[in-house]
């Protein structure tokens, strides 16, 4: 409590930041790769907290990630952007059937299209 924020570990700090971002009960939460700079253990912990806090408060959330497993295991809907458009939008059964491998393929196809422009 009385520790200076700057002295915390990355994981502790993201956890505290998550509290800060949600303590005033916002309508919308935007997460921009908020676990990408953390070690895998800390990332999993912060991701668990993210799931719990957003579920408890029922906050509408958009979470950017480059982790295909997180993209499918967290939340109830996954979208993919390419060249400024939504090129994929899956939820429900379609999302449950999706594998991280197939998702990665779609991701790289989108990237190649972009590089080929």
């Amino acid at each position, binding site marked *: 409590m009385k520790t200076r924020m700057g002295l915390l570990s990355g994981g502790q700090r993201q956890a505290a930041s998550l509290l800060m971002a949600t303590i005033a009960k*916002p309508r919308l939460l935007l997460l921009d790769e908020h676990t990408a700079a953390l070690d895998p253990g800390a990332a999993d912990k912060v991701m668990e907290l993210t799931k719990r806090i957003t579920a408890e408060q029922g906050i509408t959330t958009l979470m950017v990630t480059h982790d295909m497993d997180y993209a499918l295991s967290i939340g109830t809907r996954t979208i993919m952007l390419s060249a400024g458009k939504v090129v994929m939008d899956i939820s429900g059964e379609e999302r449950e059937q999706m594998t991280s491998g197939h998702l990665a393929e779609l991701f790289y196809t989108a990237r190649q299209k972009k590089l080929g422009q």
Partner: protein
Amino acid sequence: MNDCELNIQNLTKCFEKGTANEKVALDHLNLMVPAGQFVTVLGTNGSGKSTLFNAILGKLRPDEGTILLGGEDITRQKDYKRALNIGCLYQNPLRGTAPDMTIEENLALAYTRKSSRSFFAVNRRDSAYFRELLATLNMGL
């Protein structure tokens, strides 16, 4: 669809329009998110993710399109006003917190954001609430 918490229609943003470096960052993007939904967003670098977030946060003004949050048009609302309704977390753990303030002071700052007072004070009850919240994190805080 009026029951959408976040309703983005036709959102377009072009950087350096009319030059050789013209870059369409958002191309008539539509996105409707019902209240309470958790959406994961994938996209390569340069696909428009950051521009989308910045447009929602009011850090940049779109060329076209509208953004509704809770039914209210926030497309041209000042960023500090909409910040009351939008929480944001970035990749860099150093961003978005005041490093030289304590955890308690940081939480108090965030907690009193919505109040009209221009200063904040932490009372005992707030302090206990913060302690309780921190304990639920199970992160040794």
